Every structure is written in structure tokens, then in C-alpha cells.
């Protein structure tokens, strides 16, 4: 949060990471949503459910992450991005 700025670290051994660490231009698949039911429904209803593939269009390590999923573009606040587990997909 305040202070530490970790850029593109946070890769777990099996390749799972959070959306906040995704790299621009790459394609990922959504593995899991680590939040309460309201959070999960909100993310889902806007197009991002488990198994959905998406492409990152903006992520500067600060502020929201921009991505494209199912022909829609979304901006996801950093706080939420840290609760979204993703895995990279070989394109």
C-alpha cells in the first residue's frame, strides 16, 4: 500500500499472480476472485468470470489496470486488482 511499490513481482511457483502484476499486451486467464460475494458478482457481471481470457491494455504499477475482455474494456482499481488471481496464457 503506502510506501512499497512492487512492480512485476509476485509470481507464485505455478505461474499464478494477481491482476495488479499483469504486463501490458499479454493475455491472461482468470483463475479466481479473492473477495466476498458482492465483489465476485460485480466483477463477474461486468464480464470477468473464472476462465475468461483477457488482454492487458494498461498497467503502470499505479492506479487502475486497464484490460479488454469479451469485447469490453474495463478499468479495475488497484485495490480490486490485488484480489483477482490470474494466470498467463501462451498466445
Amino acid at each position: 500500500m503506502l510506501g512499497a511499490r512492487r512492480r512485476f513481482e509476485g509470481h507464485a511457483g505455478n505461474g499464478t499472480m494477481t491482476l495488479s502484476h499483469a504486463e501490458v499486451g499479454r493475455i491472461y486467464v482468470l483463475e479466481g476472485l479473492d473477495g466476498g460475494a458482492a465483489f465476485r458478482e460485480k466483477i463477474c457481471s461486468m464480464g470477468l468470470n473464472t476462465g475468461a481470457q483477457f488482454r492487458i491494455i494498461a498497467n503502470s504499477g499505479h492506479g487502475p489496470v486497464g484490460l479488454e475482455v469479451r469485447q469490453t474494456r474495463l478499468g479495475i482499481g488497484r485495490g480490486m486488482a490485488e484480489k483477482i488471481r490470474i494466470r498467463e496464457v501462451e498466445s
Partner: protein
Amino acid sequence: MNPDKKEIVVALAGNPNSGKTTLFNNLTGANQHVGNYPGVTVESKVGVAEYNGLRFRFVDLPGTYSLSAYSIEEIIARNAIIQGKPDVVVNIVDASNLERNLYLTTQIVELGMPVIIALNMADMAKRRGFLIDHDLLSHLLGVPVIPTVGNKRRGMDNLLESISRVAKGEVNPQPSIVKFGKEMEQELAGLGDLISRDPGVMNGYKPRWLALKLMENDAEVAKLLSKHPHIKDIVNAAKESGSKIEAIYGEPTSTIISDKRYGFISGACSEATKLTGEHRHDISDKIDLALIHPILGLPIFALFMWLLFHLTFSLGEKPMEWIEAGITALANFLSASMPEGMLSSLLIDGVIGGVGGVIVFLPNIMILFFCIALLEDTGYMARAAFVMDRIMHKIGLHGKSFIPMLIGFGCTVPAYMGSRILEDRTDRLVTMHVSTFMSCGARLPVYILVGGAFWPEHAGNVVFSIYALGVVAAIVAVKFLRSTRFKGMSAQFIMELPPYRVPTLRSLLLHMWERAWMYVRKAGTVILGISIIMWFLMTFPQTKTFSTDYEALIEETDVSMSEGLIGAGERDSMVSQYENEMASESISRSFAGRLGKLVEPVLKPLGFDWKLGVALIAGFAAKEVVVSTMGNVYGVGEADETSESLRSKLSSDPNYSKLTAYAFLVFVLLYMPCMAALAVFLKESKSWKELAFQIGYTGALAWIAAFVIYQGGSLLGLG
């Protein structure tokens, strides 16, 4: 439906940004009624239309992405359909965003009402490379699919035709309902049976839907069923079913449900959609790349804002002059046709001076709001919010705080209300405390007046600098307040970046017109009333004897002229000067003037005099009143042969320099908001202590900033 029924009730549901509102406007035109759903701040819109001898009543439901119980909009939309029992639900679906939009569709059809899909923005989809076979889609989804292009008004008749057919029962759609897998369906059937044992409670709700909601832990449905005689059994059964499903799949039930929905949707879409060779993604992509670029994003945003203010001034200049000329003509006409006296003074100096001073800026206001509507309708505002959140994060202000702040640029009141989205009280308070630095629309006339008066060539830049200063002040204030009381919270929001659209002139003009009308209305009501009161306060008590015998001085100039010592021109300007001094002294002795004189010592170090003092105090009622009060001050009792504009009178006042003017602008920027806003502040914060702090610290900050500017500038020789 009863064919003899008078009216066909149609509910319009759909995602935000799907073009629902445009469609609603197309169908109902001016026959709309806008209100609020009882007890909440959610807007309700109802309108009527006639087609083929039939009457339709359209209800525009709040835009939602889902029908869960997690947001008030969704609950309202859901209840409107279930309890309102419309004859038809028209689900507006954005064709260029088909899959995501259908997520809501699958939920709507579960409610059991007849559904028609309006496949909107079909032209957009084609341009982006998707060809949708709407007949096939209709077949797969089991509901009529009518292609429409909302902003070109295409497809409206077909839609109305389809609505009447369905409403009359000539067409009976059998929507395809999403199946959630064998195990889930079993549980749903069981639960459904349990619920339908007491049909009384159900009241139009489908048992399967209730069962589904229970398994999703829907709080509203739980509340609804609490009266059910078998509620305990039902709740236990639902819990058991939930655990069973989770054990089988290893995921929460709600996840399974959404997965199945998208599964169904993907299937239908891949069959009914053909991708034409080219993905026209590229242009939209490249634009976004620049607009939300980590480095370019902010400068581009600043550029747009700068352009906004520049246009407001340059395009507004001529119309402003016309209005000014008209007002001056009116004033001259009145002064010529009315006997000089109190009544004429009230009308000319009070009413025309005050209201005229504010009305003059109508063109600027219109241009400003036109540009804002342009930025909104093209879809840029979403990118701006994206960029702003990134900046906030970068400087250590993560949190949803900036969101209510952005609303503050229109009016501080909704910004205060908007801070409700922050759960932490300290976060809320800090956000509310700085919202006022996002200059509300009412301060703009002050900026335009003073900016235009003292910097005729560079007014746009000056006003832009004031707004920018406001943002800086907010950032500094948040950082300061946070270090003393705040605990940060990461940004929890998700927003759609809608595809770029070419907005329709109609919608832009509509927005502009709405705001323009509000401005005129305020001028003609509150500001008119206050101008009259101000006139009174500035005229009484009247001054009978002056410090200097002005009358004698004026006589002397006449004598000098007749003796040939001075020319006619010189005589006129000397007389003008004497008359202005008389007027000034007159006002300074009035109620208002005395109040101004009272605060003058406090304002003198800032370069302000009692006149500005009165204007600032009056600004407590409404910020535009600062302008109307200046109009009153320079109107009351002055020489009207010169018929100058308020701007030129201000700039030619010997007491004011550019330095004073800028210090004044900064003061107006920072000092406390109007009483309407403060009242809402109190309501939202529920604390007199916080209110006092808001008033105190904004006043102090305004004073210090103006002091630094004025004194500092004087020292540097800028004054």
C-alpha cells in the same frame, strides 16, 4: 394480456452505456416524467408514447449489469419487473458488447415476464467486425430480437410492433433458460418444491428463481421469504444444497452459476456471430493507448481542460457582448422613461445590475457544458477518471476519494453525497473537506468576470490556472489531513471504458440546454431576489451629507467649463468621477457597506476593499451572488452615461490591480462553499464540529493563500 387494456406497460432494462436512455428518449420524446424512487436517490423515469392507436407507458429502469441484491439499483430494477408486472420487458443489449450484455439477459428471463431484446448499436458492431444474425440469436435465446440503432432512431417502429404483438399475446416467446448442470438443477427443483408448498407467499415469484436466489444467499429474497411458514426448513435446505454443490465443484455456488451463464452465452454467441475479416479494434486501441498512456495521459487531459476554458472564453466573447449591449440598452431605456428615484434605482441598479451581471455569462456557461457533454458522450470521461485515479495513486492517495471529488466540479452537494461510497468515516470526512476545492459551476461566473476584466487576452489561461490550483489544493489538503487522521484504503472500483462514439448533436444540445435553463432559472429566482435585497441593503440608510461637498464641486466644474478653463470632455469625466465617489460613499454608509467596512481590516492585507468584502459575504448565499453583488455595487447611483460593462468598471477601479484580482480569484476558489452545500455537509457528516472545521480551515486557507499572493506579489513588484 387483456386486449381491452388501455395501456401497454413496458419496462426498459439493460447495462449502463447500452443506449437505453437514448432509446427511451426516442420512444417517449418530451412526454417524460422524471422522479425518484421512494426513499432513495435513484432516478425513476416514466414516459408515454402512442403507436398504431395503442398507448405505451415506458419505465426506464436503472442501468445494471446484473440483478443481484448487492446494489440498490439492481434491487429496484428487479422489483420493478417482479412487482410492477410490466406487460413486456425490453432488454436493451449493446451489440458491440454482446456477451457481457447477455449476462443480464439470462437473469431477466428467469423472472418470468415476456422479454424482447432490442439489439442496439448494430451499426457499431458491424464496424468493429461483428456480424450478428439476429434471427438465429432470437431462435437460440427464445425471445424476439429487434435490431435498433438508437442514435439514428432506426428500428423504433419494429420495436413498437414487436412490443404490441407480445403484449397482445399474438406472439408468445419461450425464452431459453440457462441450466446450471444436473446436480444444481436437482437442488433447485427440490428447493422449489419446498417453497411452493405455500403459494401465498410467492406472489408472482417463480419458485425456481426464488430457489436460485436462496442458493446465492440473496439477502432480499431471504427477507421476502421470512414470512413463509416453512422458512426454517427452506433455509436449512438451501444451506445443504449449497454445501453439496460446493463439495462437488470445489467452488462457491455463485461462481458455478455465473460460469454456467457465460457458458450458455458463449455458445449462443459463437453460433450467431460471424467475425468479418477485419477487427476494427485498431483505431480504438491506438486512441486508448494514447489517452490512458502512463506518461501522456495526464498532459492530454490537461490539454483538453485547457481547451475547454479557452473555447468557453473565445467562443463566448461575441454573444456575451451582445447580451451586455442588450442589458445596457434596457437599462438606458428604463432610466430614460422612468422618473429618477428609488423605484428606478431598484429596477436599474438592483435588478438589472444584479441579474444582468449574472445573465451575461450565459453563453460561456452554455459552451462549457456543451464541451463537457461532448467529453462525456464520446466516452472520454471514463479515460479521464482512469488517468486521475492513477495520478492519485502515484502521489500516495489511493482510495476512492477522488471519485466524489470529480463530481464536485459540477456542484459540491452531490460530491458530499457521493462520499457515502467510502465506508471508513475518516476517509469520508477527508474527502468531504476537500470537495469544495473542485470549483463548482457557480464559481465560474466569478472567474469569468474577474478573469475577463483584468486579463482580456489571457482569460482562458487564468481560469484554467485557478481550476488547476484547486486540484493542487485538494491534493495538498488531503495529504495534510491524512497525515493527521487518515488510514489509506486501496482503490476498489471497476469501471467500463465504453467504446468511442460520435455523439449525436441532439443529445449534446439537450444536455447544454438543461444546464443553461437551470442557470437562467437560478438567475431569475434566487439571484433576482437577492439582488433586490442587496440593493436595499446598499441604498439604506441613505446618505444626506457627504464628507466632501460633491454638489459644489460639480457646480464648479460647470462654471470652469463655461469660463473656458476646461473642455466638455474633461468636464464630463470629472463629473463622472465625483458622481462615482458620491455613489461609493453612499453605499459605504449603507447597511451592506457598513458590514463591508467592518470586515475590511481583515481583508486589507489581501488587497481587498469593503466592496469585495460585501461581495464575498454575499457569496455565502450562492457563489454567483458574488457577481450580482458586484453588479449592484457598481450600479447603485453611478453615472450611467458611460454605460460601461461591469468588467470594464471593475478593471478601471483604481483600488484594484491584477494582483488584487488574482488574490481575489484564489480566495473565491478556496473559501467555504455556499450555505446549501454547508447544510448538506452537516447532514452527511452529522457533526457540528466537522462543519466548523470545514468553514474555519477553508476560510483560513483562502486568507493565507490570498495574503501570500498579494503581499508576495507586491514585494516582487508585480502589483
